[in-house]
Structure formats: structure tokens, C-alpha cells
């Protein structure tokens, strides 16, 4: 009778059991807020958690302010373990919170170092309340900065601060956002001293809670004359609001310029401007020090008629920024400040761009094969062969595309331009390698990452990546910037991140000043990639966000899709924030669809998708996505292409973690063969793949197989990185561990001793990094039955650990276990009991379950 039930799989997995509350019939009707309140109440009562009200994922800590726009709380973001500020806004418009929410979300997309970063925007309940979670800044406001000190700030400091502030506003204006309530109180300063403009556009979206205070406040001087009567309908703060906004006319960015100048005037002279059109400047020593050019610029910005002001805030900033620095900057822009010779050479090539009658002539010159690499470069014959092969393949591809583009009845100038740029990149890499500035191996890798010549004849790529302005002069300027951008990419790929970053920043500025959103988008993408590569996730997010906006503004869909993919990869794989990554991925997918699903973007999408799934440990999902990516890659590039390495590697790791070791072996092996073929055995990836293979074998309980891989991995790592590299130590200890498991104790001890020595050379004998090495060494010695040396090594580890990590550091447990074991075998039960008790105490301190064997041992020792 029970068979029917028995045969059925339990339908709900535990994951579904913990699915979203609202979706579950059992709890239909229990409101979300009540659910949260209940959870918070229990946590508070039972676990002493001071859980207060939650807004989104943020637990409110304490109120830090209440203004016309709503309340501000400090709050805790548990997901990223950081303090944030949460602003709760209320809209009393008929449409409720929806519009407010939509517009607040638009604000959240704005991202600039001088704009307060908005992390999240969301709705609270259904009363039209919206919250904005943003970075928490403890440094006070711009007003505190210029008003709070004992003596006034020197005008030079004021200018430099306001130029930074102005950049934030400019960024907003580029995103078609007008602040509408700019004043010194709305600029927050971080503990790093960097100012950030806050509360963009909110004045328009919300209704002031209190009636607008029209009387001049405190000791400040009279408000600008142009403000109408006390009943005029405007939002914003009277003293800072532009005449047109005060009248209730429609406003644009120039209105912010006016408010900016009121603030700047106040910061420079200690009073707000008065006197209508004459705008008298107070007669003080300090005021007299301010250059006339600055005063004139500020006066212009304060013109009653918006048409008399600067066309854009950039113009004002240029006028007030100190001259010599500006000259310096433009010079740096040309040469590349502090950039190594590699970049200088690139700039030289770039600078020689001249209009030529036959557009195909220049790229054709660059197609000539170069001579073989000289042996003097120090690279082995294999490495040189791989390099030659890569350059030849690239040139062949470029030649084919160029022939196609140039033989057409009408030469396709955009394609030729694109190919010309690709070949320029190749030449730059080749130069760097031949002059010994970049390792041959690095050169090979960089060439494989260059813009694929085949893309240059794909219309959707061209149309969406490098559309040029029609005005011939601007066109030339933009084209030059694109040339330099492509060289920046090479500089980055060759490993000169700092230089690439400096160049990209200059290009960003050039793109902003021009302005050209396409250039900005490309420069920002570059900056984002560099930041992501260096592990600076927050910076990467800032750049990527802005890059997406810029690509949007430029209408460069390809760029947009690429940026979103890099963005998603950075957030999902490096920063492991899988919810956000999924959202970004959805946007990327939409962008790719819009382009008509070009194969290489579709593949990249699947790889990123699979990698995010892997990082989030949705392994089945990862396997599915990556298998698709792999199949598509094979279809596009063939089975032996180096592009297959990335999907193969993550796929293999996914299989490995799923316990499907055979599949993991097959995939890792295939990746290994490809890396060997394309990059050679001396490439670091090769040794890492061997290490992965070894780990797989070890996890599959096949230590002898693991030994083979790990031995080779260790040998290669030592050869490529030198005997003193930290990675050598890790590889050595991994091998020692496997050897020890195989019972090859003396060999294991020798390898572990070597690895420990390598770690000492890499880190220094007293570096905390040594702790892991010593622990592994001691364990290997102990397993070999050499309890004497093991005790000594453990003693050393203990001393180091106590000194560097504290007396109750978790890392001490392993060495204490060895001590306890040896004390026990020597019959010193009292000492052993003390050590065991200490282990238990440390475990408790760190909520780590006490090792059952320790428990058992303690029981034995305590009750003889």
C-alpha cells in the first residue's frame, strides 16, 4: 500500500523549502513586514541581537539627520559588512512611490568619485516611501569644511576642493541629471578628504516636510535679490537657488552652475553674494588674494540670465582651475605621465597618424612579417616559436580581412580603420617584446587578447563600437583618442597596469572635455578592467557603472554588452555577489540580444554566466552553461583554439566539486593540452592546471596520480618563478601532503623542508604567512613518526602564531594537536590535559566545533 509513496522522490528540496516566503502557500497571508519583525524580535530576545527595523537588507542603527526630504539613518549592510547611510523619502504625489522609485533608480546609476555612491534603492511597504542606501561618510559637509575651522581656508584650497566637487556635478550633467538643490550642505566629505555631491534631483521628487524657510539664516548676508516673494513655488534652498528656479521656470544644468557659484563665492569670501548684477566682493586681505580671473568666472556663473553663464560647468571649472596645472595636464596627456618606455613608443606611433590618400596603404605596411625573435631575449626556443606562431596567425587573419575590406568597390573606411588599429596594437606588442620590456610569454598572451581582426568586418561590431562624429575635425580628434585607447589596452595586457590606468584616466578626461561618450565609455571600461584585475572591486564597480552609462549615451551597444559582461564577471566571480551579478547578467543578455546574438558575445555571456554559477556554487547550473559555451566556442573557433581554455577550466573545476572526477580530469587535461600548445609549458597557467589536476586526483583518493601531477607542477613552478617564490612553497606543501599520505615519509619530509625554506625566503622567517608552512611541515614530520622534530617545528609555529595572531588564534589548533599527541605518548598527562583544554577553549572562542577526538581524549585524561 505504501509503495506509491515510497517510489516517489520527496518533491521539495531543502532549497525550495527555504524559497521566497511569499511564494509559499503555507505562509500566504503573513505579511513580509510581520515576518521580518518576528525574526528580528526573536533574534533580539534570544541572541541578544540588537536587530532594529530593517529597510531592505539594511538594519537601521540610529537616526543621523532629518531634512526637508526625509530622514537619514546610519545602517548596517550585512551582505557586505559595512556601514551605510539610508535615506528614507516620502512622496505625497498621487502616483505614489512608483515614480519616485523610478527616478531614484536613475540616480543610483550615476557613478563618479565625486558623487555619493548609491548602493541600492527600494520601496518600503506600500505607502510610497522609498529608501536610498548610500555610502556612509563621516567627514562632515562642505560647509563644515570651509566654515568650521578656526581660520578660513586659503583660496587655493577652496578652488581645488570646488573643482573636485564641480567634476561630480559635471558627471551628473552628462547623465542628463540636474541637481536642483546644490549647496555646501549637500556635499559630503569622506574621511579621505574627497568631496562627494549628494542628493541629486531629489528636490524635485519630494515634497519638503517643513515649509521653505525663506528668511536668511544665521549670520549670513542677504539672499540674492531675484528671489520672488515668500510664496513662490520652487523646491530647493532659497539662498542657493537660481533666479529661474525661484520663478518656477524650467531649469537645466546652468541652474546648478548658479548654485555652485553661490557656494563657491561663500567659501571664498565668507558671505553669500549680494548686490544684484554688481556682486561686490568684500574688501579683505583674503578676498584681495583671490585672482581676478576666478572672481570674473564666478560672477559670470552668477549671471541672472542663464544664457550669460558658461555653456557648461566644465567651462567654469576650466576658468577657475589653476593655470600651470592645466598646462601640465595637457602635456601629460600627450606623452603619458610617468609611463614607461613601452607606452612612449606607442604614443609615438599613434602621433604619426596622418591623413593619407589610400586608406589601405598604412595598414598594408604593417602586415609585413617581422624577423624571428633574437635568442638574446632569453626566452627558450619553445616560447619564441609560440610567439612567432601567434603573430603570424594574427597577421594572416588581418590580411584576409584587409583584402576583403579594400577590395570592395567602395573601401569600407571604418573596417580599415579598425584593422589598422589592430595592427598597430600588434606592432606595439612586438616592439615591447623585441626591446625586452615585456617577456616573450606575456607578448604571446597579449597578442591572443588583441581585438580579433575578424571583428573589423562585422557590421554590428563596427556600428556599435566606434561610430565617429561627422564633423571632420572632431572626427579626427576622436579617431586619435581611439588609437590611443587601443594602445592603452596593450599597455594593460602587457602588465603595466599603473601606466595603463594613468593613460586611461587621461583619455577619460579628454573624452569628457571633448565631449565624446564613446571615448569615455571605452576609457571607463579599461579603468574598470584594470581595477577588477587588481582586486579593487569597489573602484571597478564605479567605473563599470559609468561605462555602461557612457556606452548608452554613445549608442554603442557592443561596448555596452561587453561592459556589462565584465561588470557581471567582476561582481559575481571576484566579489561573489551573485544577486547583483545575476541582475547585471540579465542586462547583458538583453544587450546581446539587441545586437542580434553575435556568436562571440553569446559565448562570452555563457562563460560569465557559468562562472558566476560556479562562484555561487550552483554547480549543476555551471556545468550546463559552460558545456553550452564550450560547444559554441568549438563551433566558432574549432576544437583547438585557446579561447576554449577558460570555459574548460571552470567546467572542470565544477565537475571536480560535484565529485565527478573523471569528467574533471578529461576537461582539465584538455585545457592542459591547449595551454601547452598555445602558450607552452612554462606559462604559469600550465603549472596551475597541473596543480588542479593534482588536487582532483587527491580528492578522488588517488594520491599516486596526484603525486605525478604535483611533482611536475612543483618543478615547473620552481623553474618559471624561481625557487624563492611563495607559490613554490604552496606547491611544495601540497606535494608533501600527498607524499606523506602515500607513506613516502622521508621524501615528504624533504619536500616539506624545501617548501618551508622557500616560504622563509619568500616571506621572511617571522612573517605570519609562515604559519601555514610550519604547520604542514610539523604535520608531515609527525606522520613520519619523528615526534622530536615535529615537536620542535610545532613549537616554532606556536611561537610565531601566538606572536602574530594572538594566544587564542584558531590557527594554533593544528600545532597544539601535535603537541598534545606527543605529550600523551611521553606520558605527561598533566601537560597534555592543559594543552587539550586550551584547544577546547580556542574552539569555543571561534565557534568551531571541538574536534571529537579531542573530546574523547579529554574524557580519557580526565577520568582515568
Amino acid at each position, binding site marked *: 500500500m*505504501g509503495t506509491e509513496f515510497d517510489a516517489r522522490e520527496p518533491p521539495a528540496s531543502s532549497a525550495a523549502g527555504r524559497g521566497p516566503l511569499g511564494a509559499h*502557500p503555507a505562509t*500566504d497571508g503573513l505579511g513580509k513586514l510581520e515576518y521580518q519583525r518576528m525574526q528580528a524580535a526573536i533574534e533580539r530576545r534570544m541572541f541578544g541581537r540588537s536587530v532594529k527595523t530593517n529597510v531592505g537588507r539594511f538594519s537601521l542603527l540610529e537616526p543621523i539627520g532629518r531634512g526637508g526630504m526625509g530622514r537619514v539613518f546610519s545602517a548596517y549592510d550585512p551582505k557586505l559588512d559595512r556601514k551605510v547611510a539610508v535615506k528614507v523619502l516620502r512622496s505625497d504625489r498621487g502616483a505614489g512611490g512608483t515614480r519616485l522609485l523610478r527616478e531614484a533608480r536613475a540616480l543610483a546609476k550615476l557613478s563618479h568619485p565625486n558623487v555619493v555612491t548609491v548602493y541600492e534603492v527600494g520601496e518600503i511597504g506600500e505607502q510610497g516611501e522609498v529608501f536610498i542606501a548610500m555610502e556612509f561618510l563621516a567627514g562632515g559637509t562642505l560647509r563644515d569644511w570651509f566654515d568650521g575651522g578656526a581660520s578660513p581656508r586659503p583660496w587655493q584650497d577652496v578652488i581645488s576642493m570646488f573643482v573636485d566637487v564641480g567634476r561630480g556635478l559635471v558627471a551628473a550633467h552628462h547623465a542628463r541629471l540636474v541637481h536642483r538643490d546644490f549647496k555646501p550642505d549637500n556635499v559630503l566629505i569622506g574621511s579621505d578628504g574627497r568631496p562627494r555631491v549628494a542628493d541629486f534631483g531629489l528636490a524635485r521628487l519630494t515634497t519638503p516636510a517643513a515649509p521653505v524657510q525663506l528668511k536668511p539664516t544665521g549670520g549670513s548676508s542677504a539672499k540674492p535679490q531675484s528671489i520672488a516673494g515668500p510664496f513662490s513655488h520652487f523646491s530647493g534652498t532659497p539662498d542657493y537657488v537660481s533666479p529661474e528656479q525661484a520663478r518656477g521656470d524650467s531649469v537645466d544644468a546652468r541652474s546648478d552652475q548658479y548654485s555652485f557659484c553661490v557656494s563657491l563665492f561663500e567659501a571664498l569670501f565668507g558671505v553669500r553674494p549680494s548686490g544684484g548684477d554688481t556682486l561686490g566682493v568684500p574688501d579683505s586681505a583674503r578676498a584681495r588674494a583671490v585672482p581676478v580671473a576666478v572672481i570674473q568666472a564666478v560672477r559670470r556663473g552668477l549671471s541672472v540670465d542663464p544664457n550669460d553663464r558658461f555653456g557648461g560647468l566644465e567651462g567654469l571649472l576650466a576658468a577657475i582651475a589653476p593655470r600651470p596645472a592645466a598646462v601640465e595636464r595637457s602635456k601629460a596627456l600627450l606623452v603619458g605621465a610617468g609611463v614607461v618606455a613601452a607606452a612612449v613608443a606607442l604614443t609615438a606611433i599613434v602621433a604619426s597618424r596622418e591623413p593619407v590618400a589610400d586608406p589601405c596603404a598604412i595598414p598594408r605596411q604593417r602586415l609585413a612579417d617581422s624577423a624571428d625573435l633574437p635568442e638574446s631575449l632569453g626566452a627558450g626556443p619553445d616560447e619564441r616559436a609560440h610567439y612567432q606562431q601567434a603573430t603570424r596567425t594574427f597577421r594572416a587573419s588581418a590580411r584576409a580581412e584587409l583584402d576583403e575590406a579594400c577590395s570592395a568597390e567602395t573601401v569600407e573606411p571604418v573596417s580599415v580603420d579598425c584593422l589598422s588599429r589592430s595592427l598597430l596594437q600588434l606592432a606595439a606588442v612586438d616592439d615591447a617584446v623585441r626591446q625586452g620590456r615585456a617577456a616573450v610569454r606575456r607578448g604571446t598572451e597579449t597578442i591572443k587578447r588583441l581585438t580579433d581582426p575578424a571583428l573589423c568586418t562585422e557590421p554590428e561590431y563596427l556600428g556599435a563600437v566606434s561610430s565617429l562624429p561627422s564633423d571632420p575635425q572632431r572626427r579626427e580628434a576622436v579617431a586619435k583618442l581611439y588609437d590611443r585607447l587601443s594602445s592603452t589596452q596593450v599597455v594593460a595586457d602587457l602588465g603595466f597596469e599603473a601606466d595603463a590606468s594613468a593613460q586611461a584616466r587621461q583619455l577619460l578626461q579628454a573624452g569628457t572635455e571633448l565631449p565624446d561618450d564613446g571615448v569615455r565609455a571605452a576609457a571607463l571600461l579599461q579603468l574598470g578592467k584594470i581595477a577588477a584585475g587588481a582586486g579593487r572591486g569597489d573602484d571597478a564597480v564605479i567605473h563599470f557603472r559609468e561605462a555602461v552609462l557612457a556606452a548608452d549615451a554613445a549608442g554603442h551597444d557592443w561596448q555596452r554588452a561587453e561592459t556589462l559582461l565584465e561588470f557581471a564577471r567582476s561582481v559575481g566571480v571576484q566579489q561573489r555577489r551573485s544577486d547583483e551579478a545575476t541582475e547585471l547578467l540579465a542586462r547583458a543578455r538583453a544587450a546581446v540580444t539587441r545586437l542580434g546574438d553575435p556568436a562571440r558575445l553569446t559565448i562570452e555571456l555563457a562563460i560569465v554566466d557559468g562562472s558566476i554559477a560556479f562562484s555561487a556554487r550552483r554547480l549543476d547550473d555551471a556545468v550546463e552553461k559552460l558545456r553550452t559555451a564550450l560547444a559554441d566556442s568549438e563551433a566558432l573557433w574549432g576544437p583547438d583554439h585557446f579561447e576554449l581554455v*577558460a570555459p574548460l577550466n571552470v567546467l572542470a573545476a565544477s565537475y571536480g566539486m560535484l565529485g565527478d572526477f573523471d569528467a574533471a580530469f578529461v576537461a582539465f587535461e584538455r585545457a592542459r593540452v591547449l595551454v601547452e600548445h598555445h602558450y607552452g609549458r612554462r606559462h604559469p597557467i600550465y603549472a596551475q592546471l597541473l596543480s588542479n589536476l593534482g*588536487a582532483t586526483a587527491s580528492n578522488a583518493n588517488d594520491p599516486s596520480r*596526484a603525486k605525478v601531477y604535483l611533482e611536475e607542477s612543483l618543478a615547473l613552478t620552481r623553474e618559471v618563478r624561481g625557487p624563492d617564490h611563495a607559490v613554490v612553497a604552496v606547491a611544495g606543501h601540497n606535494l608533501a601532503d600527498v607524499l606523506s599520505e602515500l607513506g613516502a615519509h622521508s621524501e615528504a619530509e624533504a619536500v616539506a623542508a624545501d617548501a618551508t625554506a622557500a616560504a622563509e625566503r619568500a616571506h621572511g622567517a617571522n612573517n605570519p604567512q609562515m604559519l601555514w608552512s610550519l604547520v604542514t611541515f610539523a604535520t608531515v614530520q609527525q606522520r613520519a613518526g619523528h615526534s622530536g622534530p615535529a615537536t620542535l617545528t610545532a613549537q616554532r609555529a606556536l611561537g610565531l602564531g601566538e606572536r602574530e595572531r594572538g594566544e587564542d588564534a584558531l590557527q594554533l589548533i593544528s600545532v597544539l594537536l601535535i603537541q598534545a599527541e606527543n605529550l600523551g605518548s611521553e606520558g605527561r598527562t598533566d601537560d597534555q590535559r592543559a594543552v587539550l583544554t586550551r584547544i577546547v577553549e580556542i574552539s569555543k572562542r571561534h565557534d568551531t*566545533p571541538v574536534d571529537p577526538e579531542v573530546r574523547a581524549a579529554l574524557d580519557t585524561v580526565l577520568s582515568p
Partner: protein
Amino acid sequence: MRREVPFVWGLSPRETHDAKSAFNPRHGRLRYAGVRFLVSIPTGEQLRTDFELLDSWRAGDNEAGNALFKRHFDSLVRFFYTKVNEPDVEDLIQRTLLGCVESSDRFRGDSSFRTYLFAVARNQLRMFWRGQQRSFIDLETQSAVDMGTSPSRVVARGEDHTLMLAALRRLSVDAQIALELHYWQGLDAAELAQVFDISPTTARTRMHRARVKLKAILQTLTDDATVQEQVLGGLETWARDIHRKLE
């Protein structure tokens, strides 16, 4: 000499909790080295089992208790919300958590923490009603409605949800628990047997009878045979639907 030690050490090195030695907890020692995408394997709180967290909590560590609570709060809300009136849910969840701390390890070793948790929850439910009714409570025969839980309090989203919940609440409490734990929490017959402390065969019989009984109750609540089928089918397919929706 090693044999004389009062305990035997495993042959693998203990986890050192050093960032460098991210051991794979499932299989052993070595970590995957990072080629372009690879990242180290997670360690720490999320890898600790429920029983480990419970142990730490018993030893006075509130953080561990809190982590454990967070893992199971959702299941507990679902368990109690269908059986008692809303204001009592919070109290019962709290009692269950305390019950887990205080009660002995009857289940340890051969059962999952969830089985243990639901057994404690069931017991707390019984004691709660006994305190209210001041009489013997038989969960095998009495229903939630018998205990004074409002028969149709819940305003569910869909008509069939309302009906399903109303019908479940009229089942004997044990029958209700059996169906809900199986269909909504994914417990199989062996696990249900542990929750009720009966044999797996009896658990299967109980499941079977509960389904028959549910069908009969539905017939008293609605004459529409299609709706009856929908509700019954819905109970089974619900989890799969939700799964699909999430994908």
C-alpha cells in the same frame, strides 16, 4: 609507540583556517589553484553543520545559535503558521529553539537536524495546546481546528490555496504534519518516521491515510470535483512549480 596514545589522529592535517589552505571539506586536502576564474573553496560558518552550530550554541555561543536560527526560521514559520493563530507563532518558534538546546541528542548520528527540529516543534505544539486546554492532547486524532485555531483565518492568494489550508487544518494534527513535511519540506518516509518516532512502514501508512482523509475533507468543503483535484494535485506539484518559477 603511537598506539599507546589514548586516541588516534587522523592521517590528514587538520584544517588550519589559514586563507592559504582552503581545504576542500568534502574530499580532503588540496585546493584548486586559481587559473583565470578559479576561486578558493568556501570555509567558515556556512560549512558548519546544523549540529555543530547547535553544539556551539549549547556551549554558550550565541552567534552560532543565531546562525542556526536563521537557517531554519523559514521552515519553522511554515510549520507553525498553518497550525496556530498568528500571534502564537513567534512564541512557539522560540520554544522550539529552546527545546532543541535543552533536549538530549536522541536523534544524533542517524538523522538530519531538520528531522530533529520538527520532532521538537511537534512536541512543543502539543505542550502549548496542553497548557491552553489543560487536558490531554492527542495529535493523532485532534485537528488544529479542534484546538481552537481559526478554520479559515488565512487570506491566501489563490482560491485553491485557501481551500488547501482550510482542509489541512481540519486533518488530525499528525496527518497535517505528515503531509506538509513531506510535500513542503521534502521529508521522506524514513525521516517522517523519526519525527513521529514510529516505524517507516507506519509512516507510509499514515501518509497514505492522510491523503485519503484530505480528499474526504475537501469533498465536504467543495462540491466541485475539478477544484478538489486541483487542490490535491496542487499539494504535490506545488514544490516543482515553485522550482520552475525560480529558474
